């Protein structure tokens, strides 16, 4: 199923977005720049607080780990120096999980990796930041890459593919890229060689970033950056209707 996104569905938060892809749905809200508590205040830049909330239950170490990954990534794309001594609050609420992952908790012993949920979280955070008009140096798009034991690289695998092939998937990688094709985040788990990682990185880069110099491949699925651009274009188009209608 193609990813879907909606900007500004909430009224109370400064900016918000919902994003769903591959069975994951995340709703994100951004408040900021707001007053910061003395404890978190940074004299020369904005503090960024990320809260990840799971679909069921209260957050645990897994969510704290995801929060720290997202926080350190967002810190580099938000122009924090534009708002010193303030706080930018990012809240990400997972609203639905693929059936495979939500049914894993029945004590079957198989623990689902925390990496597949990371790309939807990052994308939602970016969309929510855009919706809140927080100044950014670049936008971000992220994707999941799985490498099977046979060395085959699969970009953005669904949860069903991961579970069914769980014996065969040897490593999982999450890559996030900026518009300028700079690598912003690389998280990996499992066994892999450096060569395999490099090719996975290339596959992810093509999936995330616009092709250079108009090398249009026909029948190509929309890449991450184009998707973001389309969502924002749609929203601006709707908001500017009053101008264009005449």
């Amino acid at each position, binding site marked *: 199923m193609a990813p879907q996104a909606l900007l500004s569905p*909430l*009224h*109370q*938060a400064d900016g*918000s977005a919902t994003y769903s892809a591959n069975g994951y749905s995340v*709703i994100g*809200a951004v*408040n900021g720049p*707001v*007053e*910061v*508590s003395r404890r978190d205040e940074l004299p020369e830049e904005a503090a960024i*607080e990320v*809260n990840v*909330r799971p*679909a*069921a*239950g*209260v*957050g645990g170490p897994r969510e704290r780990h995801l929060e720290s990954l997202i926080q350190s990534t967002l810190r580099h794309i938000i122009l924090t120096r534009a708002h010193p001594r303030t*706080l930018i*609050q990012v*809240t990400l*609420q997972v*609203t*639905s999980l693929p*059936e495979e992952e*939500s*049914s894993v*908790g*029945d*004590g079957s012993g198989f623990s689902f990796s925390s990496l597949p949920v990371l790309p939807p979280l990052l994308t939602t955070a970016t969309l929510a930041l855009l919706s809140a008009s927080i100044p950014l140096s670049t936008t971000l798009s992220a994707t999941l890459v799985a490498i099977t034991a046979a060395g085959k690289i699969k970009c953005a695998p669904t949860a069903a593919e991961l579970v069914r092939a769980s014996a065969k998937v040897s490593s999982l990688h999450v890559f996030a890229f900026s518009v300028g094709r700079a690598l912003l985040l690389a998280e990996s788990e499992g066994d892999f060689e450096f060569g395999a990682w490099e090719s996975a990185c290339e596959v992810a880069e093509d999936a995330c970033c616009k092709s250079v110099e108009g090398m249009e491949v026909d029948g190509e699925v929309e890449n991450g950056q184009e998707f973001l651009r389309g969502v924002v274009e749609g929203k601006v188009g709707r908001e500017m209707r009053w101008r264009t209608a005449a």
Partner: protein
Amino acid sequence: MPRAAEISVNEREFILQGLKENIRLDGRPFDAFRSLELNFGDEHGVADVQLGKTRVIARVSAEVTAPFVDRKFDGIFNISTEFSPMASPAFEIGRPTEAENILSRILEKAIRRSGALDTESLCIIAGLKCFSLRADLHVLDHDGGLIDASCIAVIAALQHFRRPDVAVEGENATIFSIREREPIPLSILHHPICVTFSYYNAGGIMLVDANLAEEQVREGEVVITMNRHGEVCQIAKYGGVSVDALALLNCTSVALEKVKDITKFIQRRLEEDAKKRDVGGLIAELSAENAR
């Protein structure tokens, strides 16, 4: 933690002046709810309630655990309400506000202690295995009326939820996944719904379903929980203003009307959802539920 933006003196005066002239900010009658929307997720047990601009998602999930030692024949049911900064920047994780405490206490009284859910039916093997049900409430947008919206969300999610089927042979219990056997609905004894009344002008003016601005200027509130048969599950009163006993009786009759409407609405949405899921009319054949 940033402080919540408080309502200004002018706004406060404006709202109160309006109420004295029988006008609400959004033009509703004094005893009208905001528009209510209820949507269910793809999974069972997810209810998304929108009451005006307030939006709450309730999610019910089940797992198998050992029951409490002193309650061997009962399953476990918990409601967890944790506010996130999504609803308002003033909410901080790990530091419950007063509103959060009141909400969780009222839901506890209204749904758990009123015996809405038959916890005995969640027992698999006495003393060894039972279902532990939890309802997670996610407040996405806060524009007043959180208690009413949350209660509707939890009740709707409980009715929508299906627990996995089990087969017991002596000491062994087999739990069937959704793919193996059609999951079965929970046994819910009655459907309590909360209605909040806000009091102004030293108890002279009573509003149903106040929004956030109206909540901030109110002097007192009365939360009445009842089911559609008119059985009152709980009455809670907060705030300084005193409320006449006869006025409370009047509240319950107003609440009954609202509760009937809301219950009917939930039922209609559940039926619509069931129809949508029942592709090809196979659900009736697949069901393992016993006839009552």
